[in-house]
């Protein structure tokens, strides 16, 4: 990659964002839209800066980030562990496969109020919601990855008399990593949705709370700012997962 090519992507992104803000600004001026419906980008920026200056913004952002990391990490670990268990044990799969399919297709977001009833208004219900959203795609990805193992790799493991754990760690999980990452990527998107939703429903912290607060008090520019930040957070989390994937699966790409 030449140094030109390295700069092209970010420059293109900045240009696109700039053009979008300009169009937005022109639209607001042109139609004279009232600020409580569609504030101009400058107002949104100002509201963000003001919130940041008071230290409030960092507080909310960090809270959401903390829940994301805890929920995503736990959900991914549990998803891989459960996927391994189901892929390895036909009996377990027969017993739990049906219920899991049901839970997986059920809209978890509809269960969100239940989590509040079960786990209370605090941190636990928020993290439980994120876990429930990350868990299933990772579980399915792991199962697919382990089930689709190249039979010749199974031969190799057998020949070298690898024990169950060595076989799992040295061959199966690595061979299944592309499929596991499909689940991890879906889970990353879902985790952000779950984090915001959890904060909408209860509590006084996080970007989701900031949105409900701003909309209840008609601080529309701040509401827009929170939405933009949430979108950026989602992109950042997704990019992080993709970077991890590119590094761990570099053997698939260029030699």
């Amino acid at each position, binding site marked *: 990659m030449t140094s030109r090519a390295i700069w092209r992507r970010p420059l293109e992104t900045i240009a696109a964002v700039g053009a979008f803000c300009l169009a937005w600004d022109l639209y607001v001026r042109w139609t004279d839209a009232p600020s409580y419906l569609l504030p101009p980008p400058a107002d949104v920026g100002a509201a963000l800066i003001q919130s940041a200056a008071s230290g409030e913004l960092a507080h909310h952002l960090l809270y959401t980030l903390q829940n994301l990391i805890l929920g995503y990490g736990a959900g991914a670990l549990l998803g891989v562990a459960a996927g391994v268990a189901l892929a390895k044990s036909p009996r377990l799969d027969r017993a739990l496969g049906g219920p899991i399919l049901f839970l997986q297709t059920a809209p978890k977001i509809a269960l969100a109020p239940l989590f509040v009833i079960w786990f209370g208004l605090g941190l636990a219900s928020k993290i439980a919601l994120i876990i429930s959203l990350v868990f299933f795609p990772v579980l399915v990805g792991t199962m697919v990855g382990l089930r689709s193992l190249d039979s*010749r*790799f199974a*031969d*190799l493991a*057998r*020949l*070298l*008399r*690898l024990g169950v754990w*060595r076989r799992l760690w*040295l*061959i199966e999980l*690595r*061979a299944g990593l592309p499929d596991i990452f499909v689940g991890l990527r879906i889970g990353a998107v879902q985790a952000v949705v779950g984090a915001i939703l959890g904060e909408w429903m209860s509590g006084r912290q996080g970007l989701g709370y900031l949105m409900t607060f701003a909309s209840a008090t008609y601080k529309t520019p701040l509401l827009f700012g929170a939405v933009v930040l949430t979108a950026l957070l989602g992109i950042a989390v997704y990019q992080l997962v993709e970077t991890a994937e590119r590094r761990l699966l570099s*053997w*698939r790409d260029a*030699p």
Partner: protein
Amino acid sequence: MIHARGVAKHFLTRGARVEALRPVDLDVARGAFVSIIGPSGCGKSTLLRIIAGLETASEGTLTIESAADQRAGFVFQDAVLLPWLSAEENVRFPLDAAGVPRDEGDATARRLLALVGLQGFEKALPRALSGGMRQRVSIARALSYDPPLLLMDEPFGALDLLTRDRLNDELLTIWTATKKTIIFVTHSVEEAAYLSDRVVVMSPRPGSIKKIYDSPLARPRGERTKLDPAFHQLMADLRRDLA
């Protein structure tokens, strides 16, 4: 070392019964070099996989005399390298998996890669290697843990003649030095005649053993072997049996 009595194999695929190997009697003495030759689809790979324990025989009995903790070496017909490991890491894999110290595994891998003519490719990933180079990596891997029994399924099929000749001689050197028992599947009459103590000829699909030749050729084998009239006689016999 190996005694097969009436070993046969059929597969059930979608309800249909596929005869892969008809009953086979075979004895392989410890330290022998035995080649198996036969037309495509006659069950050579199947027989080798049964001996390796990768497949269970549908009929018959198989006894293998070896220490219980000894793993057999196997060179698959199509390399079977782990694509996320470099050439060197693939060779070292059986040692790493058995918990052999790193530097010991390192030295072994480098020595064996050099032996199969792949020095300079230690860090290359399998996808960056040609078919023949991958096959050589898999041969090095099979040798890495010094197995007493080495099963090779057309290991040199994808190689050019020059490399093939060189590796044939290397294999004989290793065999002489380490006293391994080797069972070697090949399509090449010349290779079978040059390398072996015994050549097992199989009949077409579904195969069984058609004939077994004990080689009259002296050891060590070398350029002189290829001038020996007995060598050419053996090749002619094998060709006739295969036709």
